[in-house]
């Protein structure tokens, strides 16, 4: 579904990604872990199309299309979803209207009829129950005055509504207490299916207690330095990142 080949990316002239390779197939859950500053969020930004990042080398194929050629909005309408690490507050734009616009833009792009108010409400009710989000949040302006947990839950709700083929969850666990984490993880698990791929980006192993990945990759200094199964995450939790980063530093110095 997603094929990343030797991606290099800069921001303000500084190289952050230094040759990333990754293959993700439908139905798989991949976790990317790594210490702060390793390039995890940059990878998410590059995939979603943030303009301040410049891709200098490499290619990304998403559902047989050249992802890097698509605008941010077209990537979303093709089925790529980014759950933001810091969801943006947008006063004055109602969450419900925003999600309705997003759902219908996607339908239009894929040649489907726009949902009418009744069908949209029905869909919303169903997805609200799925991710345990309250109606009162959705009638407010986008994320305005939401707690950290509410913002993250709203991201997962949007994911449920937009039914992406590939969801990239950027540090969705950050800033959540254990109860909020459990609710968010439960929502994500319900959205797991054989047609959908999920890329979890996280610093800590704890999210992976709730969402079991098929593969774990360690990103360090702009490269994936180690890949494995979920046991790799446990090893990291136990030994810290040093055991991998020291190895990588040593390899680089040789």
């Amino acid at each position, binding site marked *: 579904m997603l094929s990343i080949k030797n991606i290099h990316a800069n921001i303000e002239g500084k190289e952050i990604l230094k040759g990333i390779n990754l293959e993700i197939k439908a139905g798989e859950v991949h976790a990317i872990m790594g210490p702060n500053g390793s390039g995890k969020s940059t990878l998410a930004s590059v995939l*979603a*199309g*943030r*303009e301040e990042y410049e891709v200098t080398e490499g290619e990304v194929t998403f559902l047989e299309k050249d992802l890097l050629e698509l*605008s*941010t*909005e077209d*990537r*979303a*309408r093709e089925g790529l979803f*980014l759950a*933001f690490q810091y*969801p*943006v507050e*947008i*006063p*004055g*734009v109602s969450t419900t209207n*925003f*999600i309705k*616009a*997003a759902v219908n*833009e*996607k339908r239009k*792009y894929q040649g489907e009829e726009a949902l009418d108010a009744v069908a949209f409400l029905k869909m919303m009710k169903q997805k609200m129950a799925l991710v345990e989000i309250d109606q009162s949040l959705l009638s407010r*302006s*986008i994320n305005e005055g939401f707690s950290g947990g509410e913002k993250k839950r709203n991201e997962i709700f*949007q994911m449920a509504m*937009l039914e992406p083929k590939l969801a990239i969850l950027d540090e969705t666990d950050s800033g959540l207490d254990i109860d909020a984490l459990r609710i968010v993880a439960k929502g994500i698990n319900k959205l797991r299916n054989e047609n959908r791929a999920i890329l979890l980006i996280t610093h800590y192993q704890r999210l992976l207690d709730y969402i079991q990945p098929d593969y774990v990759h360690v990103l360090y200094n702009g490269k994936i330095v180690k890949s494995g199964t979920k046991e790799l995450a446990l090893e990291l939790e136990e030994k810290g990142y040093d055991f991998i980063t020291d190895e990588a530093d040593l390899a680089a110095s040789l």
Partner: protein
Amino acid sequence: MTNVDYFKDQFEQLQDSGPATAITELRTDGFHTFNKSGLPTYKLEEWKYTNISSLFDKAYQFANADQAVQLSDIDAIRLAGHEQANELVFVNGRFIPALSTIRSTETQLVILALEEAAKGKYQEIVKAHLGQSSEYLKDGIHALNTSFIQDGLFLLIPKGQQLTEPVYIYHIADARQQNTLSQPRSLIFVEENAKLQLTETYTTLGTAESFTNEVLEIVVKENAFVEYYKIQHDGLNASQVGSTHIHQIGRSYVHTVVVSLNGGVIRNNLNLVLDAAGNETHLYGLYLLKGNSHVDNHTLVDNKQQNCFSNQLYKGIADDTSTGVFSGRIIVQPDAQKTNAYQSNKNIILSDKATINTKPQLEIFADDVKCSHGCTVGQLDEEALFYLRARGIPKEAAEVLLLEAYAADILVQIKPEPLRNHVAELIYEHLSIS
């Protein structure tokens, strides 16, 4: 013939046209002032950013108002909610009763030609208040309006009348044949415990230049309640100086919203004189500028008595090569202790070639007051734009959503729902067409 010669000629004709009244004298004073001051130039501090005099390089005429406009022209411009409104029509600056529709009864609402009011039962009111509601901005352009008071409007809401039908004023300028100068003049008197909802709009017919130089005075008595809305959405050939003076002579409540979408050069003077203890005043403004338009809002809140409250919020967006100006002056006179006066002006610039000039001025002569002012000039929130696009909303639509949200704080201040929805649609259309 130059404009000045033309004005002189027209002025003499007007003064000779009937017996002398209080208004004839007022006109004479006005014309003296005009001759002395001339049109304001950018050398005057109050006119630093807006050049009106160059607009008068073109020759203007006072166009005939009698048969210029048909009812069908008015049908095309009626505001939402007009079925329940008193609709007053001005053509080329003259109030035309024949084209107007009055729905309130005579006990609820008195409507007269200003010249008639100056002669009859209301003459004391006219004498005391016409041209007296504010001492500010008695400059040349204001004097030009006063020099030519003709077919003005006198509107009075009698004591205790909570007028449920709003008053809509449609200003129509006929620029189909020539460059037209319109100078509407109105005096509105809101008596004790009365309520008025007033909206003004402006429409130019034809493609020649239209210049509207309006003076509106509203006098508000004890326990009265006034909502005033001004919607400017005219052609690029339509320029305007609109001076609104609101004189709160009794403890009263005034709420104003000025929305400027389209037009050539627009200057709005909104002067509030808080002349009774405990007055409350709210001033809101929204200007969404594109193309080459120029909108200048000057507000003035003069706190003369104690315990008055005023709050101002003006928001603007400037795109293309447009220019926005905000100048907000707050005066707190020595007797105006316990004044609360707040002011804020916020702007978004969407293009490298757009300009915003913003100037808050506080002049405080009392010691026990709370006043604040602030202004910002920024850009569209890139992070918010990315968030919307990352959900599949195209860039242009996302920008419109964000700009609409930005304007929403002001839009909600338009209290009557039909009017608010009407303006919301105008804003959406205006923002969507690039």
